[in-house]
Every structure is written in C-alpha cells, then in structure tokens.
C-alpha cells in the first residue's frame, strides 16, 4: 500500500480492524474507551463519508474522546493510525505542488511566503509536506530522522520571513505599534502551524518506516492530568492553569461547606400554615427557614522555595484561583520565614504580575533562603495565629524538605489542633517521603491527612475524597 488513503484502499473489514487497533492505542495512552463507545464509533463510521478524513476524525472523536484534555493525545494518535496518505507526499494523483518545484530553495520560500501571507492553511500544509519529502529524499541514516525537523526548520528559517510578512500585512503606509503587534501575533500563529505540520509529517513518515508501535511510544505525550508538577514544561503550565481554576473552586467549596446546600433549616410554622390555606387547611408542603449561609474560611500556607519552584508556581495558581472564588481566603507563603501574600491576589490582579510581586515584595527570606519549615511555622504562629480559628480549614502545600533543621512540630500541632481541618498536599512521590532531609513523616501524623499531589489527577482525587463534612 504505497499510494491511496487508508479509507480508499481498505475494505470495510479492514477499516473495522484499523478502528479497533486505534482504540486499543487510545486505551494504552490512558483514554478509558468503553465497549459501548467502541460500538458507537463503529456505527458512526457506518454513517459517514469515509473519504472525508476530517469527518472521520470528528466521528471517532465524538464517540471516544470525551475530555478536552485528551484531545491532544487523540489527535496525534489519529494522525498516526489514519494518515492522510501513505508513501511519498507528492503522489501524482494529488493536487500537490508540482513535483520537484520545491527543490529550488528560493522558489520554495516564495511559495511559503505567499501561503503565510494569505494564511492559507491548506497551502501551508502542502508546503510542509513537500519540504519534509524533499528533506527525506536523501539517504538519511536510520535514527537520524528525529533531527530532520530541527534541520529542516533551520534551513528554511521561516523567522527570516517575518519582516517581509509584516510589510505585506501592514501595507506601505503609516501604521501604529498596535497594528504591528496584532500583525505579529497573526504571523506567529501561522508559523506555529507550519512547525506543527512539519512535525506531524515527519512522524507519519517515521511511522511508515519503523512501524506504528515505535513511533507511538516516542510521540505520544502523557495526558495533561498526569504531568508531574515538578517536571512541567511551559506549555504544560499554561494548560495546567486552565485545569486549576475549576478545581480550585471545587476544592474551596469542599473544604468550607458544612452542609449540603439544599438541606433545609428549621420549620417555618407561620408560612406553612399560610401555604396550607390553598389546600383547604391541609399542610401538604412544609416551608422551612433558609439556613444561614456558611462563611467559608480557608488558610493556605505554601512553600515557595527553590526545591519546589515548579510546584510553587502551581500553588500560586491555586491560591489566585481560590482568591477569586472566595473572599475569606488568606494565603501565606514561606521559604525560611513566613509572610502573608493575600494582598497580592486581589480578584483583579493578573497572575504573572502577582507572582513577581510575591517574590520581590513579600518577606520570605530570613537567613539563607533555604527551606526552613520550623522557623516558618514559628513565625506564622507568632504573627498570624489569629488567622486560624475553629472554623478554618488549613491547607499546607510543600515537600517537607527541611534541610535537617528543627521541624517545628509543636507549632504545627498547635496550629492544626486549632483549625477545623488541616490538610497537606505534597508534590513528592510517596516513596521519597521521610528520606534524606524530608521531615514528612513527622508532619504526617500532625495533620488530618497528607496526600501525594504530583499531578492534576491526584489533586482531583483528593478533592473528590473530601466529602462535605
């Protein structure tokens, strides 16, 4: 099978096999696709035009991929298992760029320039394919293909086209900074598409040469809810932020709610009698007084030292999200001493700015800037003891790595004892707790619960477990 799309070349039976193999790959990647959903997917394939690849993608996604966070994985697997076409990109029966036209680098860049200028997505895709085709034509030694993408993008050097593109988009006349900024954004977006197309095409070609299994393992990124906070990349962090907001809301409501909202208060006798008049004096429905709404009180105490800096970033996201949802949230940060950081997170500040101010303005370093839980707890108790009342839930975030200093267990015991609940979220894997300078074991028994919280998935589980008490 060297030319012709999968859908064209395979009989229906073949397609079913392909679909099942694809679903098995989805499951390996962590998407829980049920048998019922597999049946749905198959029925869906029976109803659509299989030659339309985007329809095929949409149909499979509708039946099997039901979380936005799984979509990235779904798409990269779909591109592997249902490639646009097999073999060389420049198949003669296609409306492709004419054969070797791209050989000449200048002509090629001219085409690219035009496609980027017009924002023509199909053209960008065609060009990316032709470029990969061109680059792979030479004898690439096995194992070197991974470098192709980098080398190709370096040779083409699309960044060099930016000034020209800017001129074209803005026209010759006068233009303001504002217009230029917007134009730059647009260009960046198109360049990103180009890079993505190149990567996808290389991946597809590799899959053909080495078999799907090998490529699948190396190209499928972990699901975003499994990404370790301590090892998150910048892209991951942006994605994490989107996930954290709804979670923060749930966390705060779980920690603070006392009763379910719909449970009613005491009987309102007068209004019950009034209501019974409509039914001839028979009190069919009782009327209750509304409960006084419970004022949530939450104190977050978080370690923002270097050893957990990636986690700290996440922690501050969580704090900022919590602050937006609930007024009675107080946040404290510490490295080797402790300061209140609530003021940096008013509902209208933006997160990046607030993080910068925490580092610059808050009084977090006392001695040497290495974590000191003992001193931090002591300072917290001296300065902010009144923050914790019997109505407060205390949430501590940190790895408990104390650089072999005094661990301040007595202070923590008093603080946790005074609060209604005390929970500790620890970004370290559980098997590392208590090893080296970790004082985790000492703290573990002082709080209601200490949980491993390395990724969104674990955070979600923790929140789900916290039943309204």
């Amino acid at each position, binding site marked *: 099978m060297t030319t012709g799309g999968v859908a064209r070349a395979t009989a229906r039976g073949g397609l079913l096999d392909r679909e099942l193999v694809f679903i098995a790959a989805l499951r390996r990647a962590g998407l829980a696709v049920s048998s019922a959903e597999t049946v749905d997917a198959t029925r869906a394939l029976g109803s659509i035009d299989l030659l339309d690849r985007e329809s095929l993608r949409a149909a499979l996604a509708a039946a099997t*991929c039901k979380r936005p966070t799984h979509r990235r994985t779904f798409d990269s697997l779909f591109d592997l298992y249902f490639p646009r076409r097999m073999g060389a990109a420049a198949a003669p029966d296609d409306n492709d760029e004419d054969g070797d036209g791209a050989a000449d680098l200048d002509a090629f860049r001219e085409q690219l320039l035009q496609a980027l200028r017009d924002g023509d997505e199909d053209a960008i895709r065609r060009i990316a394919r032709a470029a990969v085709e061109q680059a792979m034509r030479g004898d690439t030694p096995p194992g070197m293909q991974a470098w192709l993408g980098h080398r190709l993008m370096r040779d083409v050097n699309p960044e060099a086209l930016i000034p020209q593109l800017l001129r074209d988009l803005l026209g010759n006349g006068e233009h*303001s900074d504002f217009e230029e900024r917007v134009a730059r*954004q647009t260009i960046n977006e198109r360049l990103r598409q180009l890079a993505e197309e190149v990567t996808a095409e290389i991946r597809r070609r590799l899959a053909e040469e080495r078999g799907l299994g090998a490529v699948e393992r190396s190209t499928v990124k972990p699901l975003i809810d499994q990404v370790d906070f301590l090892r998150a990349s910048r892209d991951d962090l942006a994605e994490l932020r989107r996930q954290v907001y709804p979670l923060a809301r749930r966390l705060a409501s779980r920690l603070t709610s006392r009763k379910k909202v719909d449970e009613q208060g005491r009987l309102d006798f007068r209004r019950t009698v009034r209501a019974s008049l409509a039914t001839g004096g028979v009190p069919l429905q009782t009327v209750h007084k509304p409960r006084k709404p419970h004022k949530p009180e939450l104190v977050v105490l978080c370690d923002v030292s270097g050893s957990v800096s990636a986690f700290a970033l996440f922690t501050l996201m969580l704090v900022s999200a919590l602050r937006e949802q609930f007024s009675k949230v107080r946040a404290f940060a510490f490295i080797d001493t402790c300061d209140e950081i609530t003021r940096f997170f008013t509902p209208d500040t933006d997160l990046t700015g607030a993080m910068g101010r925490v580092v610059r303005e808050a009084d977090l370093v006392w001695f040497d800037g290495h974590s000191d839980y003992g001193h931090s707890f002591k300072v917290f108790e001296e300065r902010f003891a009144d923050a914790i009342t019997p109505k407060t839930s205390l949430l501590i975030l940190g790895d408990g790595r104390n650089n072999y200093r005094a661990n301040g267990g007595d202070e923590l015991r008093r603080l946790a004892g005074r609060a209604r609940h005390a929970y500790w979220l620890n970004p370290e894997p559980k098997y590392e707790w208590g090893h080296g300078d970790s004082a985790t074991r000492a703290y573990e028994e002082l709080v209601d619960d200490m949980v491993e919280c390395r990724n969104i998935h674990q955070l979600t589980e923790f929140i789900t477990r916290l039943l309204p008490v």
Partner: protein
Amino acid sequence: MPDSSTVQPQFASVADVRERLGGAGYLADDAIATTVFLADRLGKPLLIEGPAGVGKTELSKAVAATTSAEMIRLQCYEGLDEARALYEWNYKKQLLRIQAARADDAWEATHDDIFSEEFLLARPLLSAIRRTEPTVLLIDEVDKADVEVEGLLLEVLSDFQVTIPELGTIAASRRPFVVLTSNASRELSEALKRRCLYLHLDYPTAEREKAIVLSRVPEVPEKLAEQIVRTVRALRAMELKKAPSIAETIDWATTLLALGIDTLDEESAVATLGVVLKHVSDQVRAIGELKLS
C-alpha cells in the same frame, strides 16, 4: 441498545447539515457538522462542552430552526430537582377533586382518577419525550446542576423513557434531538458522558470567525471584520482571565459600526475595549501588551 424505530433522521448527509445550519445563520465547521449529523443519525444525545460564548446554545437553536422542530429547554441550576425537570402531580387540583367527590363515590374510583393524565404537570423532560412532532431538547448548563440530576438524566437519555409509578412507563414515540451543554465548571460523570456523543466547541479559526462576523453583522466592511478578528485572536493569545468569545467579537463589530468607525486603530481600540474584555485587569494587561495607551 436504542430502538431504532423511534429514530427519524432529519439530515441526509454531513454536507446537508452544514448547508441547512448555514441557512439558519450558523456556520458549522467539519467537526460540528459531522457530530450533529451523527447525533441525528444514531439518535444519541449530543454533549457540547466549551468556554462560554462560543455558540453552544446557538447551535441547538439552529438545529431546531432548520428541522422546524420545537425547542424545549431545561435550564439547569443548583437545586434543580425531579419535580422541576421531569414531572409533578398537581396536588391542589387533586385535593379539589377529592373534596368535590360525592359521598357515595367509591374511593377506588377517585384514587384511579386523581392519578391520571389530567393531574400530571409535565416538566421539560417529560414533555419532550411525549411529543410526536420533531423536538429539540436543550438541557443547558448541565454542570450547574447537582450530581443527582445526572442520575435522573441517565434513564431519560439512554432509553428515552420515563417511569411514573402511578401511570407506568412512558416511552418516546419519536426520539427528540437532545443537546446538553456544559461550561465544564465541573467534570460530568463518566456514565453520562458514555451515553452521549461529545463535541468540544472551541474558539473558531480566523477564517471561520471572520465569516461568522460577516454573516451576523453584514454591514461591517470586510477589512474591519478582518482587523477585529485578528485583534481578538491576539487578545486570546494572552493570559487573560476571560478570553473574548465569539459573541464578544460580534458585539465589538456592532459597536464599531454603530460608532461609525471603519478602521480599528489604537484610539478606537482603547475606547471600545470594554466590549470585549470584562475585567479591569484584563484591560490593563491588554493595553500593556499591545502597547496601546
């Protein structure tokens, strides 16, 4: 397994969906058209998730308009219960009936009588199931309702039937086209998701968004529409609290048009930024990043 006899497809093909939705003023892309087509063809509920203002509710309205179906809407909120979603007995009327009964009426007869259709108040879910005409049932913002409501929906959405203890089971004679929308403020249960086809609606591509603006605000010059769309996309690329939605893009076009502005420059952008960005911090940030000021 759904009984296919009650499924009466309204659309002939994916292209047909796209064309007819287009006629109703909704520009669908490949994914949307395919998923709507499948939901219709397979008779499965369609769960649409996505940020606010990307046209989730609009889509179901367009489907209703183009299939000349009546739209029944169940707006979910915290505390929504069976009596508001499914059905309720009309207590007051039942009581009147009992009091009006003559002394020699047998209790048995009265009993059968007061638990009949006449005393039943149908709420959206039941009404949608009982209708014989084409119906679009929109269950809006499912994520706002309590988890218990999801359990209630399971029976209705998997078998398209409702069991009323006193009357028996009422099955749909004609399956409604069901759309559930969610802003993903909480994760819906796996059981509910399994029964639905899923569509994640996100911000559209630049091309499509421009087409949407032009179709909704036809008076706007194409050049201005393009500028607006590009600027909105630049705004979405920033880390904002609330990224501008399609609805806000359209509002912006309308506003600029009403003010008689035909090119979006710094001055007009700053003056009307409030239309697209609804948080002060977002505005400050946008002005900073786009070097407006």
